[in-house]
């Protein structure tokens, strides 16, 4: 009994496991084929097949854009080493776009982030239920509009023929002499922040309201017995109960910094405000599709790669930190 062959037993066990894996795979064959494969194939074709194209960042690549497909370009273009990254380093417009991306994200963080928190608390304090519901319907609606539509309305309101100019002229006719609110470096970023709050501020309240609704009512009852007023209850009960959610949302928004909202900026900006409004995504779009001079598309691939790598690190980092605060990773 003592000298049984351990190795043989392990081998047999492994063979058995292998067999059971094959068995399990066979058992799920229809799931693989009809349920997993379609979605997976779409993701692989449209999200993974472009990835080898990143190699263009190290290649010279100037022919007419889009005349041929990705892989024929990859095969035919010559490697140039780190040239594109070096010229990227010296490119002023690139640094301007990088700086703007961070600046706009930070401004949105400072002004845009607290807004839904405060609004959610105010909505929660509202005692008229019907009215509250109507308000919520109104607040959340703009989220579902495209930036094409919202920008269309903004351009009309603040434009040359718009209401804002006409109202301002009533109070201060001098101020509208050279009206260029949309094309002014000083007013463009505030415009971005205000229109962002207008569109997303109400939508942002939903998670906070759900969290506030989950607060144990007995906490409030106990506080009322202890003589706490409404303001004190907001500060000492409601806020602490949603703090971890606030922290998670803050971290996730910081992680998303590199995405300064292409849709919004692209539909609102114009050449006069490139110095304050051009972000990396709009910059990549312009040098790729709207450049007047012959462009090396390897360069614009390099800019895209630069952005995507930083974005990746920020997103992963933010997600990991948010997990420490109880974030589940899908949201």
């Amino acid at each position, binding site marked *: 009994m003592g000298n049984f062959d351990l190795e043989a037993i392990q081998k047999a066990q492994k063979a058995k496991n292998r067999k059971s894996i094959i068995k399990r795979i066979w058992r799920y064959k229809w799931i693989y084929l*009809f349920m997993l494969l*379609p*979605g997976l194939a779409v993701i692989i074709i449209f999200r*993974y097949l472009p990835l080898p*194209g990143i190699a263009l960042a190290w290649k010279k690549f100037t022919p007419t854009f889009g005349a041929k497909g990705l892989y024929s370009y990859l095969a035919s273009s010559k490697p140039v080493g780190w040239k594109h990254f070096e010229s990227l380093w010296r490119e002023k417009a690139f640094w301007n776009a990088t700086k703007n991306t961070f600046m706009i994200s930070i401004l949105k963080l400072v002004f845009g982030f607290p807004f839904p928190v405060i609004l959610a608390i105010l909505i929660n304090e509202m005692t008229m239920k019907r009215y509250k519901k109507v308000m919520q319907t*109104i607040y959340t609606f703009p989220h579902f509009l495209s930036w094409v539509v919202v920008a*269309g309305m903004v351009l009309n309101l603040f434009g040359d023929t718009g209401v804002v100019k006409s109202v301002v002229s009533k109070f201060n006719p001098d101020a509208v002499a050279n009206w260029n609110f949309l094309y002014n470096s000083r007013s463009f970023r505030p415009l971005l922040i205000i229109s962002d709050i207008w569109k997303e501020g109400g939508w942002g309240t939903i998670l906070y309201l759900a969290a506030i609704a989950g607060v144990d009512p007995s906490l409030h009852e106990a506080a009322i017995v202890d*003589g706490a007023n409404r303001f004190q209850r907001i500060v000492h009960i409601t806020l602490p109960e949603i703090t971890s959610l606030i922290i998670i949302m803050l971290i996730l928004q910081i992680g998303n910094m590199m995405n300064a909202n292409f849709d919004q900026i692209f539909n609102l900006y114009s050449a006069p405000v490139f110095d304050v409004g051009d972000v990396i995504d709009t910059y990549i779009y312009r040098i790729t*599709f709207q450049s007047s001079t012959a462009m090396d598309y390897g360069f614009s691939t390099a800019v895209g790669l630069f952005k995507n790598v930083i974005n990746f690190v920020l997103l992963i980092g933010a997600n990991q930190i948010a997990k420490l605060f109880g974030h589940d990773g899908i949201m």
Partner: protein
Amino acid sequence: MAKNKVKYGQEENVVAGAHMVRHVHTFDVILFILLTLFALVIVYPFYNTILVSIVPQADYTRQPFMLIPKRVTWENYKFVFESPLLLRSMLNSVVLAVVGTIYNMVLTVLLAYTFTKRDLPGRNIFRFILVFTMYFGGGLVPTYLLYKALGLVGNWWVLVLPTGVSITYMLIISSNMSELPAEIEESAKMDGANDIQILFKIVLPLIKPILATFTIYYAVERWNEWYSAMLYLKDNKLWPLQMALRQIISSATSISTVAMTGETRPPIYGEGIKMACIVVTVFPLMALYPFLQRYFLTGLTLGAVKG
């Protein structure tokens, strides 16, 4: 002011609850005013858009700020509904919303069900492959050239096929499917049902409200599509409504710049026509929103449920 609030607040708490309805406190008044004010800020641009679209151009130019229009004209809407570009793009958008949403939902639901199988060999690898795409992509140039290679540039299907699956929606639906009691599925299996039957006959009917939510989200995304059209579709016959709208808005803004440089003028779209286009674009959403609000609003919290 702050002092007042505290005083009234304390008074309220002495007889907590009962007289809240009877007395209106300063705090409530301020609250009411603030919330109403924000609602007005949201509503006004819509109201202004509708007004500009229905008043004669001359009235609007004379007095842009209006509350009640003196004269009403339907000329702008006549233009919109007689413009071949806009009519075609409306039709395109409707088809896109229907076809795209079905395509998205079918793929999403199938994947979601796959990931409820905890002992599926390779489950974690497949999950990683999908989730990775949420964090990293090829970028504009590689993607464009790949689509070129696939024959999608200039092809209407570029608006549909690459949209595929939203990984976030898929994972939320999947986790909701997993929360269903396992016995339901087991007993169905005993009765000889296969996975496809279980999914469509048992699982999906049980999560109908969640499916409604994400169907709506996908439909809104497809309805709002313009970016892919701008990148890949030069031919405006293939454009969805949002892209046509964008074209009209931006060409009208460029009139002033063109006029300055003295070049020939592009077709003139007045503010009235632009705003009429916006109203037409937003109308379906606005008409449905109050009725479907429940579904519109639950998506985010569905994701947060799983702790």
